[in-house]
């Protein structure tokens, strides 16, 4: 380094304004990211994210399947079919009762007088 450079070097730069310190550090403090919580889901999932992801997807598929099949079971169509089935069953029972009653009635109906045998009188 020659004399000229030394001479330039001797000239001190202006001082940074003192009030900037508080302002700049305050702005930097605000920009600081939120502290990380002690435990995060990612800590648990990180070692094998693919395995956890696959398991979560399988669970989702199972839940969806369960929900849709449940809806089908309890849907308006299935309840209508049940009612029809019950009505048919009731009708069949009623018919059976009527038939039974008819048979019983036929057995119980009294024969006409002419057909009744009067033992010694007729002979």
């Amino acid at each position, binding site marked *: 380094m020659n*004399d*000229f*450079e030394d*001479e*330039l*070097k001797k*000239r*001190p*730069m*202006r*001082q*940074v*304004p003192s009030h*900037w*310190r508080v*302002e*700049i*550090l305050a*702005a*930097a*403090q605000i*920009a*600081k*990211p939120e*502290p*990380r919580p002690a435990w995060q889901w990612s800590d648990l999932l990180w070692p094998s994210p693919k395995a956890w992801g696959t398991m979560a997807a399988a669970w989702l598929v199972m839940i969806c399947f369960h929900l849709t099949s449940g809806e089908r079971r309890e849907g308006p169509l299935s309840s209508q079919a049940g009612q029809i089935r019950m009505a048919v069953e009731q009708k069949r029972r009623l018919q059976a009762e009527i038939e039974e009653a008819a048979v019983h009635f036929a057995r119980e109906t009294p024969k006409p007088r002419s057909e009744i045998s009067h033992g010694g009188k007729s002979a």
Partner: protein
Amino acid sequence: MLAVTDLEQLYDDHAQALFGFLLNLTRNEEDTRDLLQEVFVKISRQPNLITNARDHRAYLLRLAHNGAIDLFRRRAVREKYQQEPAELFAETADPDEKAFREAVTIALEALPPEQRAVVHLKLWEDMTFDGIAEVLAVSINTAASRYRYALDKLRQRLRPLYDEIK
């Protein structure tokens, strides 16, 4: 995570150097303040940037330089500052010395920013060309040649005054 005290310590250790460098580059006090704040906000947001750095001063100067270059790119009219440049050197009561400092300020301002950056880091930060090359992301040869050209220009401009005060 960088503690508040670490950030304060960083500021106390390096803000003056960053201020001088940025003021020499931008020649505008407001821009210097914004860029200085930008550097510390960046460090506060990503503390690992500084904790992983080998040389804190060099790393902060690099961030400051990148910020200044971005600012120049954003603002096409860099010339507007040449009308009223900010004072670069400390005040002095000696009129000859004052005249010389003003002349140096004007001579530095006449240099292209990339040459000015090298001169500043070499003379007022006492850095080696190796370190300067790292801060400015250029080769050592580029840094050295920029310095040589810049110094020739400064010598040419300041020779009469320099001879006088010598």
